[in-house]
């Protein structure tokens, strides 16, 4: 067993933890954090896969840099969307 296997397992464990929280939590901020934990798990799998060979796989690392920026942008948007005051008073009931 090498340290790569450990990190791979850790990555999928993080992903599953995030998924569990996403399904069970109700608060918007917590769900956003849950998605971020899922993302971190995915990235950990990718970085560990990159580190399994010498020299380290630069393609996977570059993909993770891209993925990180994409995830961070989406998170920033989600955070603003979740906490912008909505005038609840004049919402006519519209539930399906």
């Amino acid at each position: 067993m090498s340290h790569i296997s450990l990190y791979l397992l850790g990555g999928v464990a993080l992903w599953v933890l995030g998924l569990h929280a996403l399904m069970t939590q109700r608060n918007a901020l917590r769900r956003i954090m849950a998605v971020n934990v899922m993302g971190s798990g995915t990235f950990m799998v990718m970085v560990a896969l990159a580190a399994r060979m010498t020299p380290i796989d630069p393609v996977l690392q570059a993909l993770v840099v891209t993925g990180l920026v994409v995830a961070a942008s989406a998170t920033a948007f989600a955070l603003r969307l979740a906490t912008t005051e909505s005038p609840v008073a004049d919402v006519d009931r519209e539930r399906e």
Partner: protein
Amino acid sequence: MSAALLSLTIPLATAMLLLLFRTRAGTVVIVANTASLVAAMLALDAVMTGAREQLSLGNWDAPLGIRFELGPLTAVLLVFTALIHLLVTIYAQASRHSKTRDTDFWPLSCLLHASLAALWLSRDLFNWYITLELLGLTAVAMIIISGPRSHLPALRYLLLSLAASLCYLLGVAFLYGRYGVLDIRMLAEVVVDDPGTRLAMLLLTLGLMLKAALWPLHQWLPAAHAAAPTAVSALLSALVVKGPLFILWMVWSTLAEPGFARQAGVLFAFAGIAALVSGGWAALRTPWLKVLVAYSTVAQLGYALLALGLLLYWQDPEMSIALWLFVLAHGLAKVSMFLGAGEMQATLGSRRVSALKGASQTMPLAMFAFAVAGGSLIGLPPSGGFIAKWVLLQPLLVEPSHWPWALGVLLGTLASAGYVFRVVTIAFNRADPSSPGHDPDTAAQWLAMLPALIVWAMALLSEPLILWFQEVGL
């Protein structure tokens, strides 16, 4: 290829210019869209006369760089995207009820167009992840144009779409870890059927099904699509959900081994029938007009899923043609339906289905658009929906052992007939018509009708299209 690239570049450049100069001129977008449509048609023409083209971005060949491919299907989809975007922007510019005129709808819809074009052209698993993310973010940003009421469904959509992307990305990571390539065709050459690959395919499939709102992962769609402004709902239902569907089709039709594909195909086909039935049932019961149309999207995606399932189950390439004909016909019909519904809703001042009483009298054009589009969704001849269903049914009817599947199609047809006639009967109830709040906007109603007319005209065009697809493949 240069025409296809032009068709991708024009909307992107237009979005940049609109943002830089802070203009919200719809006419600029319409002109740019026309140019993009012409470019897409030139690309289609090039593919028709020549052959499929490849482009290695940056001249780095596939395992190192990203590959674009312009085949028949990609060219048709480029034209389809540009056409639908053009129709919707003309409506959004002309309609008095369009709530999108003085907003960021214009640059956002251009970005949507560009990201879809990038998705159709790309053949790289990771690049698809970014285009999917682009699609999701644009969709959410466009939904919230309609104001605070849409924030909650938009947030749910955003979170689910993010989770779905990560599901997809984990699948991509597994595939790369196993085979070391990201290009779909190179992957198809080396892929073997083992548990790890199946797991990766499962992850890809779950992520894409959630993004495409395929049953049973469709729950987010009705609220999100119904909450958006009318022009946006039309774009979302007609275009956005088709992006992940394209990737799903691509992944399964190129990567899955026959044995595995047969097993999964049955599941897809059953999910498709379930979508047809449950989506149709929900559309029959909802009191809200736009939610009804949105549920009809869920139901109609069931046909695509059924076609995908049967494609995998029988390994019959005819089914791919049926799938994409459904997508084209549904896209056009759904634009018409959403625009007609939005126009009636805005004029009558209520979101309820019941408010349409007597609409055939007060707003005959919009109602007609709705009904004509509904006819294509049901599959009445000679509409585009009919042609698609015909291509799907032909192999089903040849062999008696396939007849149970035809029963599923029949159920779906009945369900869609049910919700279309539900609206139509209310509209023809002229005893006590609800009076419109404003004057009906005739030009806008004609614009809502236009896509429906095109979908009926598609019946005439589709025979050469089908023959061409059969000849050269998709």
